[in-house]
């Protein structure tokens, strides 16, 4: 009787790591292999500049991926984030543009201080998140349907507010600051914000009851309810969180370009979902991690930059991305099944 109890004190009696840790290691290996392959075939790919660019060009997918990961872990999809990115960018510009009569319609805004404009923008994003929460958590409509709808609504608001184009005229200098503060090399402050958000998300995911409840709901919604988890409220909060993160992303991207472009963020919802799945999350919920998602985002980044470096014509990039994604996810499932056999 003494032996098994002793074993329980060890981190893991069988010496086996969890499935999640296993997948993260596998995907990290995939990342290294892809990076090595790219370095072999592409001249000068193996450099600090490449590594820095990888971070500089993918921070926004990582921020979106945080919200999408939490939702996917809880068993829900969020396809509205791309639309919200576009909307947030346009609205932050519209709220900040000067209110004088003299400008053309696209140059006329509300003339609010930038800080107030950011707050207002985030409020509108939260409203979209609340719509998701209402229909999905409370009325139990399938999340894919609702969030495809709210994606269109958000995109539509952006389009209307930017008259189908972009808002950039008359923006104060302050508008372009936050997205362009350089840190080192090509990396700007937005990437640092993404890194901070990732650290916070990792902490919430693994160390708080909030994170744990997310897993409980995704693993078995009914059992979670019967265990006293306020399931509806929790899912609602996750959607608001995801919308808020998408709003932050949209504001940062608009600041970087110093323009609120209504088509910005098109397809981001798919990329955010892909990187989350690459990170080992299950579409059925209960499984997934922010760390995996970050690795997934880097994998997608390596593939994109390698495609560029290989001088593939841009129209081929999508197919290359698709092939790598498929292979990675199939390999992942295969290894996991074999491990758990």
């Amino acid at each position, binding site marked *: 009787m003494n032996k098994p109890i002793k*074993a329980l004190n060890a981190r893991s009696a069988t010496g086996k790591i969890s499935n999640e840790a296993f997948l993260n290691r596998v995907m990290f290996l995939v990342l290294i292999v892809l990076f090595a392959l790219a370095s072999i075939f592409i001249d000068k790919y193996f450099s600090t500049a490449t590594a820095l660019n990888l971070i500089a060009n993918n921070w926004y997918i990582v921020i979106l991926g945080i919200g999408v990961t939490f939702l996917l872990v809880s068993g829900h999809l969020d396809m509205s984030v791309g639309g919200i990115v576009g909307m947030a960018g346009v609205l932050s510009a519209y709220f900040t543009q000067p209110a004088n009569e003299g400008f053309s319609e696209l140059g006329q805004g509300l003339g609010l201080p930038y800080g107030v404009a950011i707050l207002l923008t985030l409020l509108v994003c939260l409203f979209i998140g609340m719509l998701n929460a209402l229909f999905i958590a409370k009325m139990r409509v399938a999340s894919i349907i609702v969030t495809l709808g709210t994606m269109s609504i958000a995109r539509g608001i952006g389009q209307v507010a930017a008259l189908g184009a972009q808002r950039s005229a008359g923006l104060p200098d302050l508008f372009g600051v936050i997205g362009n503060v350089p840190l080192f090399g090509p990396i700007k402050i937005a990437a640092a914000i993404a890194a901070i958000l990732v650290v916070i998300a990792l902490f919430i995911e693994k160390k708080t009851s909030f994170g744990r409840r997310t897993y409980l709901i995704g693993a078995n919604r009914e059992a979670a309810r*019967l265990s006293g988890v306020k399931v509806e409220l929790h899912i609602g909060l996750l959607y608001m969180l995801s919308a808020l993160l998408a709003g932050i992303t949209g504001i940062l991207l608009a600041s970087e370009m110093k323009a609120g472009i209504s088509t910005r963020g098109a397809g981001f919802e798919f990329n955010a979902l892909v990187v989350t799945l690459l990170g080992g999350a299950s579409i059925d919920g209960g499984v997934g991690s922010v760390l995996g998602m970050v690795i997934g985002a880097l994998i997608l980044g390596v593939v994109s930059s390698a495609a560029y470096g290989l001088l593939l014509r841009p129209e081929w990039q999508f197919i290359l991305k698709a092939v790598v994604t498929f292979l990675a996810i199939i390999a992942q499932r295969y290894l996991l099944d074999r491990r758990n056999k």
Partner: protein
Amino acid sequence: METNVLQIKGLVKDFPGVRAVNDVCFDIKRNVVHCLVGENGAGKSTLIKILTGACERTCGSILLNGEEYCARSPKDARDKGISTLFQELNVVDQLTVEENLTLGIEDTTFGFLHKTDKIKKIIDVLKDLEPSINPKERVGRLSVAKKQIIEIAKAVASETEIIIMDEPTAALSESEIERLFTIVKRLREKGVTVIYISHRLDEIFTLGDYVTVMRDGMHVATKPIAEVKDRTELVHLMIGRTVIESYVPKEEQSDEVLLTCKDVCNHKLKNVSFNVKRGEIVGFYGLIGAGKTELARAIYGADSYSGEIVLKGEKLKGTPEKAIKAGIALVPEERRTQGLFTLLTIKHNISAMNLKKISKLGLLNSSQERATAKNYIEQLNIKTDSMDKETSKLSGGNQQKVVFSKCLFANADLLILDEPTRGIDVGAKAEIYAIVRELVANGKTIMFFSSELPEILHSCDRIFLLYEGEIKAELQNGKDIDSQDIIHIVTGGAAS
């Protein structure tokens, strides 16, 4: 022709760290009902999985009609003559009975379906087995029992030699069970060999010709039922120790009323009123569909109701989360879909109902969580090599102990147990009964809902009989108990 339809020789199956099936040898005679019993984790399921092609053997041989047999998938097994009636039935609810029966063997001309002799034959088999099933009926509207019969008909029509039935009576009512028994006997007459797995030992005596007992992955005995003296002998073979105890009345009774239900009604319940005293084990017995689960869920706030439920003088207000706060915990009827997070580890399951206790300001304290898990794993004797193991990998009895741990950690005064021993083996059942007694000794109160009379009689101080959503009688255990009367009442007879 060989007299043995199936010969198993030196069969071994290794999982990482465990030898689930260890050098098993026995024969199954043609044209008999051959029962397979053993505690959970005894290796029955693994053996069945090997037979049906759901997993591969490590070594050993299986001979079907004297020839080496190896199935690559359940479909392959079926083609070779071994069909299985799984606990999770393989029917499509949205289709009709006929469409279900012909699924996968439809004949088409230019893409249009047409009836062939093959299909007519299947329908005839079904009519032969159970004339009351209308082939045009949608399967989703049929009872579990009838769905089973559809699967059996499909197997019989494909001229299967062996049908494996895995706990077929687990979800059936008494009358349905009897009908199933008639069908099993008919199958035997038709020349089909039935491998029958059940935890209900009485069934084995009524139905079986032979019985094989397994324990800890090993073959213990195979003998004709006629040579098994009684239940106790079988149980003894299964667990190697005697466990059945009879009901011992409690010495002192508290008079403090803990829970009162007054005129509780909902879609199933009709004016249910009763009270539960502190420290009691109160049993609720009735057949499937009598309203047991509905009552348990109403008290817990999982389903809506009208009427009044009062705990310790305070009215309960209908959500599980508030019920837990008030001091109630539920061990739900369906372990895997309602009680357990099978994807998650043992320790994460155990803490799920009371994250507050292992956290401060929302921050989890993982060493406290590990200590909690360790405590319950020892206390309830959960068999596992690690608390970081996913609960999907545990046997049924151990899974149920994890659900119990979860509810105990919620620190409830009143535990509602809904079919707490369903689908778990005799040894684990005895352990669950012992846990229940110990809980009461430690001041907890138990409401025990079950459709197995022996366990109700074994454990409960007071018993309510339910029929069609109503309480039909209240009995004091140890005094006015007559099993025949009880069966009479719960099947709709008037209370005497």
